[in-house]
């Protein structure tokens, strides 16, 4: 198995608050790493500093792309440009990340234009293909973001990220606004692309059922620290850390007779080592 990404001792503070505390992990090509954890524990900050959307304080991010191993944080803006095609991010807040004055056609076409791919007719066709793949009507292309539902906007973001056929896709809560039926279709799509093109996913999500279904490995974050990581089934079946146990105990059952009764924080050891 080829390694695609290697993150070592990544740290990021805002002011005097340490938000990401020395996080390290490796990801193999064509695999999916889930990142779960407390709200506010630093998941978005972590993935954004990996992609250099924000500058980390220390640590390294090495990426094994088409140009071989490179340290992402040592590249100049110009050297980074080709990587902008290989690595894509789907943002947590779909509305805020879509330009309200652009039609969906322009939004989806933009990455192709930036990377100077194809002619107009080809690009138009690619947009139509992507819309179909994320289960949106072809007529969507001419509409503006405000004319869509939350889940439809989320799918526009997904289509935009996938249109360049990237190698690494970072999904930050990317299927959270979808009903379970459309969600499972989108996850099937992501899986199909993975086996077809060898895509690798970093998959930040709160829905633990989805993570269990979709990811190979999982990393559990609590208060800026990785408290547990390993193959999904192992972590879900025999969690080591009390925070992971707490998370698993708080998944609501769809059986109304089974009342949710999460573990009591007071009885757990949530101290960080």
């Amino acid at each position, binding site marked *: 198995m080829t390694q695609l990404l290697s993150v070592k001792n990544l740290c990021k503070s805002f002011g005097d608050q340490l938000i990401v505390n020395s996080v390290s992990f490796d990801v193999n090509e064509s695999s999916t790493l889930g990142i779960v954890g407390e709200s506010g524990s630093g998941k978005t900050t972590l993935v954004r500093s990996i992609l250099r959307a924000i500058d980390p304080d220390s640590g390294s991010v090495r990426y094994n792309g088409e140009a071989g191993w490179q340290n992402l944080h040592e590249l100049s803006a110009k050297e980074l440009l080709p990587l902008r095609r290989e690595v894509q991010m789907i943002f947590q807040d779909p509305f805020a990340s879509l330009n309200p004055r652009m039609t969906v056609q322009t939004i989806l076409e933009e990455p192709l234009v930036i990377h100077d791919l194809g002619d107009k007719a080809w690009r138009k066709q690619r947009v139509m293909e992507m819309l179909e793949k994320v289960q949106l009507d072809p007529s969507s292309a*001419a509409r503006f973001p405000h004319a869509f539902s939350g889940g439809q906007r989320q799918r526009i973001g997904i289509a935009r990220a996938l249109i360049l056929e990237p190698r690494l896709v970072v999904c930050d809560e990317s299927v959270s606004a979808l009903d379970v039926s459309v*969600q499972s279709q989108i996850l099937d799509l992501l899986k199909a692309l993975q086996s077809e093109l060898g895509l690798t996913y970093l998959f930040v999500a*709160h829905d633990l059922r989805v993570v269990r279904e979709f990811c190979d490995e999982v990393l559990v974050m609590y208060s800026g620290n990785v408290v547990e990581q390993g193959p999904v089934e192992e972590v879900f079946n025999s969690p080591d850390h009390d925070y992971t146990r707490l998370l698993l105990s708080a998944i609501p059952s*769809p059986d109304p007779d089974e009342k949710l009764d999460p573990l009591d924080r007071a009885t757990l050891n949530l101290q960080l080592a």
Partner: protein
Amino acid sequence: MSANNLVSINNLTVEFKTELGSVTALKDVSFDLPRNCITAVVGESGSGKSVTSNSIMRLLPDSAQTSGEIILYPQKSEPISITSLAEKDPRLRSLRGGLVSMVFQEPMTALSPVHRIGDQVAEAVLCHREVSKEAAWSEAASMLEQVGLTDVQQKMRMYPFEFSGGMRQRVIIAMALICHPQLLICDEPTTALDVTIQAEILVLIKSLQQKLQNSVLFITHDLGVVAQVADRVVVMYDGQVLEVGDVKQILKNPQHPYTCHLLASMPGAERRTTKESKQKNWAAGAALGGGTALATAEDGRQVREFVR
């Protein structure tokens, strides 16, 4: 007069006029929101859940053409026909500013980027109650603690962009709850929260509902959340209401094939079904246009299994 219902939605149809022709978002939607009750709305992405709740708040854009009627029966005043209120009618202000409050689906769009979190939540208190600034600030602080934020005094001096997605969502929930509305509308309020915070928020919404004896319209696609929080469930698909019922009936004994399909699509459900039957389910779901023919007996059995 309606003794039992806070809101009645009757034959609501909403069409958006666009340059490319019209989009029908709701077709003849009718259901009630009983008093002292949490009603969940589940359904397909794009099925009209947010358009329904925005219609109750009269927040649809000018391009929307509405027919049908929404009537609100407030506790101590005359019924209000929401759909026929003029834009300048003072009752519209009282509707949006207190009778009904809403947790929006996308938190960033509901917060002002240039005001501190604390000021925004305190402002929500000041809009609804005649209290001093200090009292509003401390009420805001206590509500933010109840939604699970820590170091509240420090966080209240921060701006929305300095908050995580889930922290912003909790601010919006706090702002809606602090108004003590007769109708609380929550549009996907817990999607950005980890499950432990989600569990706490669900308990908070339920206990405030019981204390205030108000009504809650709770839009979610998480059937686990529905099971934990709702008394009644409305199932929507393609702008229509397919099924309305008691939470136990809908989740344990769903009548409509689409509801069965939703239950079968829950992540994890696949582990118990074979790939083929999953695909069949999928195709059946896609073919649902007419709202009939779905789920064979075999599928019927599988969908009723609950997954952990």
